[in-house]
C-alpha cells in the first residue's frame, strides 16, 4: 500500500502534530492556571517556545549525551513525557477555562438560532 518513505512520513507527521498539540495545551494551561486567559496568538507563541526548547534538548541528547543509534530509546522516552504532559495539561486547561466559556457559548448558540 505505502512505500517505506511514505509510511515514515505519515508516522513523522502524526508524531509532530501530537507534539504541537502538547506544546499548545501546555502553553494554554499555564496561561489559564496563572489567571490570564491569553490570546490565541500568545498561546501559539508560547507553544513555539516549548517546541524550540524540545528541539534544543533533543539536539543536545543526540549531539553530546547519547549516540544516534539509541534514537528509539530517546524518542520513546521523549514521547512518553509528551504524552503524560498532554494528558495533564488538557485536563487543567479545560478545568481552568470552563466558566466564562459556558456563558459565551450560550450567547453564540442563541445568536445562531436568531434568539438575540
Amino acid at each position, binding site marked *: *500500500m*505505502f512505500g517505506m*518513505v*511514505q509510511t515514515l*512520513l*505519515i508516522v513523522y*507527521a502524526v508524531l509532530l*502534530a501530537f507534539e504541537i498539540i502538547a506544546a499548545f495545551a501546555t502553553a494554554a494551561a499555564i496561561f489559564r492556571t496563572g489567571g490570564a486567559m491569553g490570546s*490565541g496568538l500568545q498561546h501559539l507563541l508560547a507553544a513555539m517556545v516549548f517546541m524550540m526548547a524540545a528541539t534544543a534538548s533533543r539536539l543536545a541528547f543526540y549531539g553530546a549525551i547519547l549516540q544516534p543509534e539509541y534514537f528509539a530509546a530517546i524518542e520513546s522516552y521523549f514521547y512518553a513525557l509528551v504524552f503524560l504532559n498532554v494528558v495533564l495539561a488538557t485536563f487543567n486547561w*479545560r478545568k481552568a477555562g*470552563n466558566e466564562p*466559556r*459556558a456563558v*459565551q*457559548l*450560550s450567547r*453564540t*448558540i442563541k*445568536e*445562531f*438560532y*436568531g*434568539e438575540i
Partner: protein
Amino acid sequence: MALSSIFDVIYTGRILPTAAYVGLLLLSFLVLSQNPRSTINRLFSLLALSAALWNVALFIVLGAGDAIAAESAWKLFGLSVLLLVPTWTYFALYFAGTRITPFLVYAPSIIFVPLVLMTNLVYTGVSQIGAYYIREGSGGLFVAYNIYILFYIIYGIVALFKVYETVTDIDKKRIKLMIAGIGTVVLAGTVDVLLALAHADALPIAPPISIVAVFLIGYSFMISGGGLE
C-alpha cells in the same frame, strides 16, 4: 469491482448530489435569514454554500464523458474541497469560541490550490472505473494533502464536541443534532480520505451524505421555537 457496482447504484441518475445541492442552498438561506448580521450565521451560510458547490462538482464529475472533461471536473471538485475544509474548521472553532485569524486557517488550502489546479504533483490523472472516472494520486504531496484534510475535519468535530460538554442542558439537544448532522458528513469524509490513501477505486460518498446534515440542522431550528414559522 464490487465497489464500483455499489457506486453505480448510489449515483444512478445523479439524484443524490442534486438533492443535496438543493437542500444545502435552502439551509444556507434559512440560517442566514435567522440572523443576517451575525458572523456565526454568515459563516454557516458560507459553509453550506461551499458544500453545495462540492455537490455541484460531484454532479459534473459523474457526468464527465471523457478523460479530459473528467480531469477538469475533478479539479473543480478539488477546489471545492479546499474551500470547504478550512471553512468547516473555521466555523467549528468560531462556534466553540476560539477566535483565530482566518488567514492562518486557510493558509494550507491557499498553498494547495495552485498545486491541485495547475500541477500533477498531488493528483496524477484520472482513470475509468465502470461508468465513471476516478482521480489517481500518488507521492508524498498526495499523502500530505490527505493528512491535512483528515486533520482539519477531525479537529473541527473535536471543537464542536467540546462545545457540547460545556453548554447548558437547554442548548444540548440542538448541539447534539448539529454534531450528529455534521459528524455524519465528517465521518463519511474520513472514510473518503482513508479510501483515497489506500488507493481504492472509489468515488467520494461524503457530498451527497450532507443531506443528512441538512435535515438534522433544519430540525434543530424547528425545536428551537424560533425559526420556520
